[in-house]
Every structure is written in C-alpha cells, then in structure tokens.
C-alpha cells in the first residue's frame, strides 16, 4: 500500500507573528518557515507504517512556492521515499488544495492519505475532509491512533467528549492530531541521502484545477491586546479582589 502525505510550508510555530502595518496580511519577510507540525506528525505516521511493513512507499506532496521543496526534503530526510512539488506563487485555499490533491491521488492511487488536521497559519481545518469528499472516500479526522487491518483501518479520534474509534474502508483519509506520535528528527546522513531522492515538479495546470481563491481577504488586524493586570501578594487578597473588584465570585 502506498501512503500519500501532503505537507505545507508555514511560519515556524515558535515565531511570534506580526501583522503588516497596512493590514494586508502577516509579515512573512525574513521569518523562519517550517513544515506544519501536524504534517510532520502525518509524515512520521506514514514512515512508521512503512517500517511496520504495512506501507510500501511514502510519497509526500507540497503545494507552494519553490521553497516548499525544502519542506519536501525535510520529509524525505525523515524517511519518505519521494516528493511531488506543485509549484505556484499564488495563494491556494483549502478547496483548491483538495482538488489538486485529488489529481495527485488519481495518478498515484495511494491506499491511504494522511493529512495534518489543520495548518497553523490559516487554521482552516478543512483540506482532509474536502479531499475525502471529492474522492468519495471515508474519513477519520483528529486521529490519535491508526491501526491498519486487511482492507480497513481502525482509527481512534480525539473528539470533544473524549475518544472514539471508527473503522474505515480503505482507501481512506486520516487527519492527524497532536498525540498520534512524536515525529523523529532527521539524522545528518539521512539529510544527505534525502538530497538524492526523487522530487518531481508540477504546476496546478497539470491537474486542470482552477486555484482562484473563493475567499478574498479584505484585511488582517491584530486582535485587541489584553494587558497584564496586577500581582496579588496572597490567596486571601486574590479571593477578595475576585469578589469585590472583578465581581466574578
């Protein structure tokens, strides 16, 4: 079984982002970029399936500018087998991403696609579900455990009330949550080896997909700042203030 993993290049999760002064977006100049953390978890899961003999090949795909190739190389250094870069400098929103990924799935015929549950830049949480709809496949979002069986997968999901487990007919889509696994660090020899792994370059037009955004961003603003309050010396003062000043007790 082939496993396909989409990866997105996003602002590193440690970076404190800044909204541009003209409110057109977030300042991305000279900001550290990394693989979306949920995608890293997806790559790790796919590699573990391969190591366990459940998967035969791990293919990673990224949609983005030329630099997204670095994100693919990171996945290859972790242990993925080959990459596909769908190169574009345009903004590609989740529905268009899902349509492009459907094109890749049609070509590659994976038995499983593992998608990060959301990207930490736009926080949309849509792509996996949309891809699954376009393919007419089953979906298990927010996965914390994946067990591959014969033609099916049993997936434990993190839901509001706790955990639930679904059985999916394969092929299917799984979206990964934080506790699915802890991704490995790529070793230096593997980083060197990754440079020789195949990376195909494509364009959105190759898949006949119109990537024009459906949502227009009119402006991006900073949220109202919450300022620090006061320090209280002891518990008694705290309770007193909550009762009289804040009026919440």
């Amino acid at each position, binding site marked *: 079984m082939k496993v396909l993993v989409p990866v997105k290049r996003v602002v590193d999760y440690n970076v404190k982002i800044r909204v541009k002064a003209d409110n057109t977006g977030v300042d991305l100049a000279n900001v550290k970029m990394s693989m979306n953390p949920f995608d890293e978890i997806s790559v790790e899961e796919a590699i573990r399936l391969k190591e366990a003999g459940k998967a035969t090949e791990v293919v990673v795909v990224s949609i983005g500018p030329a630099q997204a190739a670095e994100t693919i190389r990171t996945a290859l250094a972790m242990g993925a087998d080959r990459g596909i870069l769908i190169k574009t400098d345009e903004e590609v929103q989740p*529905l268009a991403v899902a349509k492009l990924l459907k094109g890749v799935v049609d070509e590659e015929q994976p038995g499983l696609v593992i998608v990060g549950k959301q990207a930490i830049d736009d926080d949309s*949480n849509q792509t996996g579900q949309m891809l699954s709809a376009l393919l007419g496949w089953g979906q*298990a979002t927010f996965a914390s455990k994946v067990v591959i069986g014969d033609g099916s997968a049993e997936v434990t999901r993190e839901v509001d009330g*706790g955990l*639930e487990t*679904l059985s999916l*007919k394969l092929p299917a889509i799984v979206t990964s949550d934080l*506790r699915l696994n802890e991704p490995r660090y790529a070793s230096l020899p593997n980083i060197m080896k990754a440079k020789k792994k195949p990376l195909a370059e494509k364009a959105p037009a190759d898949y006949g997909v119109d990537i024009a955004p459906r949502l227009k961003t009119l402006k991006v603003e900073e949220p109202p700042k919450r300022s620090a309050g006061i320090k209280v010396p002891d518990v*008694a003062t*705290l309770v007193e203030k909550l009762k009289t000043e804040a009026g919440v007790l």
Partner: protein
Amino acid sequence: MAILVLAENDSTGVKPATLNAVAAAKEIGGDIHVLVAGGGADEAAKIDDVAKVLSADDAAYANRLAEPLAALIVSIAGGYDYIVAPATTSGKNVMPRVAALLDVAQISDIVKVVSGDTFVRPIYAGNALATVQSSDAKKVITVRTTAFPAVGMSGSAPVEAVAAAGDPGLSSFVGAELSKSERPELTSARVVVSGGRGMQSGDNFHLLDKIADKLGAAVGASRAAVDAGFVPNDYQVGQTGKIVAPELYIAVGISGAIQHLAGMKDSKVIVAINKDEEAPIFQVADYGLVADLFKALPELEAELSK
C-alpha cells in the same frame, strides 16, 4: 434568505453549542431552520428565533459519522443560502465535507458577522484576525461558539421530518471512551480551572477538582498536561483543543504558551497561579499570584469555604 443550522446533538437532546450557532445565524439574518440528525428534535424546537426544526431521526446519524451526515445536509442544501454549524469536533469534521460536495469554500471558525458575505475569523492561533469575503453563492460556515452569546430556549418551532439520505458505508462506529463528569462542559462553563505541567501528576488534579467543586467550574488543562498523560485529551484548552471564554479562568501551573493563550484569552477575568514570575501567562492575567501551587491551592480552597 434561508439559513440551515446543523444542531450539535445526541439522542437525548441538543448541546449548548447549537445555541451559539443559532446566535450567529441570527446576526446573518434570515429564516433559521435547525437540522437535528439522530434524535433530540423536540428540544431543538424550543430554541429561540428558529422558524422550523428539521428532524432526520435515523440510526445512520446516531454516531454522527461524517459521510452519511454530509450526504443528509447536501440533500437539503438546495433550499439554503447559508449552512452553519458550531465549530465543535463534530462540526469541524462534517462541514468541510459538505462544502467540498457543494463546491464552495468553507469559512471556518467565524467570530464576527460583518455582512451577508463578509466575516471575521482568527488565523495564526488567534494572533491575527482576518476579515474575509466569500464569493460563493452558498456559504458554508463554522462558528466559534465563544464569540456569539447563546440564544434562549423559550421558543416553539414546528418540527418537520426529513428523509434520511442513506449511508454510503465508508466508515463505521466501533466504540467510544467518553469522559464522564458531573461538572459543566468546558466550553460553556461560567468558571474554568485549568492545570498545566506544574501540576506534576494526574493525581494532583484532585487539588483543582476541589476548587472546581466549590465554584461549580469545569476543569481544563494545557497541552503539556495532556501530553504528559495527567488528564485525557478532552481537557485540552488551546489552539487545537477547546476554545473557552468563561467569566473566570484560573490557570494553575500553566506557563502560557501561545497555543494555550489562543484557547482562553477571551475569558472575562483571568487568574494565573505560577511559581515562575516570568511566566508569559502573567502577561494576560488580570490577577497574578506568584506562588507554589501546592501551597496556594489548599489555601484557595479554604478561602472559598469561608
């Protein structure tokens, strides 16, 4: 204009998140119909400002599997300009599927309705707010429940049955391990008491339980506490966990990572108890107490008993 709101429900009734989603629909403006899949329609009929409740009482929807539920919504979507759901794990699971089947973009997690086609939504863990305009004829929206105060439950809408749309049989429910608690739900509690890595163990959460009992509060946790296995995943407050905005949020032994703040910074009053006075949580706290939590929590419990 007609708006379809997907109720968050189980067979026993509708959950509070539904009331926030209806509140958002009210701001959009139009005839509001609530779709209840899998029982609980009688209770939904009491929701204020609802013109009609559509009940699809079929076993296929008992576990809210995405594929049959999306098929149901799409089967009746023709009559609606907006399809709205609360951004719960269930809403987040099914709505993008609906959007893709309808070939429209989804507008996730809106916190404000600017106009019929323009909405505000948080991006980058709430560190920026984007105002987005949709060019799609039909709009599929999920609602951040904390941003829209719940509507009341004093209505009496007519209930109409809708036909089930079949189960494509792509997935099946195996089982669930749901946390049982007598406490209010995290996302709708008036007071939330959360613990972080500083709690040091799951057993120590009983210190928070005692405070929560005194205050009628829900108990939450930071990602660090969940990752460390102190408490189950459904306790997690943060960017990728639950978003809460109670009247009072008490953060205990939580340093205040960006992704945690994303889940609670809209709380009305924030209290932080941490022994590290440099902890970032103090930058958003209205009241900060620099103290050892193992000393402060029993004191707090005693003080609240007075």
